[in-house]
């Protein structure tokens, strides 16, 4: 036991532990809930906490706790996946743009700039039109929307790294592009990139709820945290936990992950 805790002192392990915690909550949490997230109880809507419903009921009289666990599952899994997608591809492309020929960089830069200038709503609608409303489409949409941002950041970060001599050396040795990107440059921008990924994760949580509002997104009776807040917004006048608790969970989830990633990215 002491060994394990001793190990956890390192920032890396703390970050991993936090991710594992949320992933476990996402995977196991819903199994522990006492109600189906779609189950409608006989309780009045927006009722307060009771023994039957620890966090009360939502706007349709469903158990808030069960829906919350379901919401955590979808938000965590979808946002993890899409952030991973957008950041890995965006980061890779950003570094690749720096290391490849100049016209590739210019072109990629223009396209990324263009994507950033197009409002994400339009983008989301396009992807719905093209890919439908499946979970895969959802992850794709969110992935594509934040890819340009990740691209920009990683390009900016890797520009100075690509000038460093160890990259020159690897090139002089005749290493493949992929090796240079993944092995030489990536580890050196991982820290600041992490902080950036953290912010992007927040945005994807918020975007998910906006997409649900538009019509794509998690399909009923499932829910994501942002949509849960949105659908129970009227509960604010009754101080309903159905609206307040998901807000707190979102804040704890995103701030926690950001703080951990920040300190992970910080050199000491």
């Amino acid at each position, binding site marked *: 036991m002491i060994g394990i805790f001793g190990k956890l002192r390192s920032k890396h392990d703390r970050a991993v532990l936090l991710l594992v915690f949320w992933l476990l909550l996402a995977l196991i949490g819903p199994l522990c809930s006492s109600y189906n997230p779609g189950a409608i109880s006989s309780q009045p809507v927006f009722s307060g906490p009771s023994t039957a419903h620890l966090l009360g009921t939502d706007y349709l009289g469903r158990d808030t706790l069960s829906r919350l666990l379901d919401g955590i599952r979808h938000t965590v899994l979808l946002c993890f996946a899409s952030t991973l997608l957008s950041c890995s591809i965006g980061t890779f492309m950003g570094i690749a743009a720096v290391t490849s020929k100049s016209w590739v960089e210019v072109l990629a830069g223009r396209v990324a*700039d263009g994507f950033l200038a197009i409002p994400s709503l339009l983008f989301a609608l396009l992807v719905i039109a093209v890919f439908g409303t499946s979970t895969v489409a959802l992850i794709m949409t969110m992935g594509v929307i934040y890819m340009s941002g990740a691209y920009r950041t990683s390009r900016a970060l890797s520009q100075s790294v690509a000038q460093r001599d160890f990259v020159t050396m690897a090139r002089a040795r005749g290493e493949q592009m992929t090796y240079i990107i993944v092995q030489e440059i990536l580890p050196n921008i991982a820290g600041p990139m992490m902080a950036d990924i953290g912010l992007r994760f927040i945005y994807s949580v918020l975007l998910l709820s906006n997409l649900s509002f538009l019509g794509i997104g998690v399909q009923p009776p499932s829910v994501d945290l942002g949509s849960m807040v949105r659908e129970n917004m009227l509960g604010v006048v009754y101080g309903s936990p159905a609206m307040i608790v998901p807000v707190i969970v979102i804040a704890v989830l*995103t701030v926690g992950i950001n703080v951990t990633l920040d300190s992970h990215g910080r050199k000491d």
Partner: protein
Amino acid sequence: MKNSLPKLIGKRCLAAATSLVFVVVTVFAVTNILPGDATDALLGQNATPQTVAALRHGMGLDQPIFFRFWSWLWAAVHGEFGHSLLNGLSVADAIGPRLHNSLLLAGAAALIAVPASLFLGITSAIWKDTFYDRIVSIMTLGVVSVPEFVIATIAVYVFSVRLHLLPAIVDVGSVHSLGQFLYAFFMPVTTLALVSLAQMVRMTRAAMADTLSASYIEMALLKGIGPVRLILVHALPNALGPIVNAVALSLSSLLGGVVVIEVVFTYPGIAGLMVDAVSSRDVPMVQACALVFCVTYLILTTFADIVTILSLPRGRKA
């Protein structure tokens, strides 16, 4: 110096123009790929094939897409952005007042957010890794992580409904004095400023922390320079590039990313117009709005790039 300043700026503007073309083409394509067209919004459930056909003909939607794009582009190049498919009003007339409103809101929010984020970013860079730094970081993250409609709605509920201090909706027409402006705009502007704060604070902090570790800062300290002069004269000019870039990105999202604020405060801005235009497939309106956002974005980022160039003495002299 191989590149003179006008040449650099010209290059940057050319790049911006390329992006603009990309956006215009993409937006047009996207709006046309989307299922349905403007006749849906006008006729809805009562649509009949005859009225749909007549309407499409009247709007020119029965013409081939390339022809439509070309005629739009041709007119747009000549400063004519067409008429809304929905109400026949001139797009420029429809966007004008709303753009004015949006700029007012965004401008006011920027007036708060930019100095505030500079202050927070700089101070947390100075007191890096202290308790203060952590608190600022967690607070700004917290504010951005809570959906903005929650912040806005709760603010309205508390300040307008419960305390009757401020109006729940922004009546732009009633603003004639600074007092009225503050009264009407206080909440939306504050909310908007809050949600746009995080990114600017973080970038400012990073850039500033970087600069503060430079040896000319230590040198200035050893010359007996006071903290204010140290920050303003020595550190800030060198951190300006990344900060201005972050500010530009955040400001551009102030204009287009405020749909929620507009909805909650019933504010007639351009973001709402765009959403409306997209959902009703009002192509000329969508195009014009996208153009406005894109141009804003490009102007801001290009401006930021030029400021970055100018903030370096090389750039200033060239």
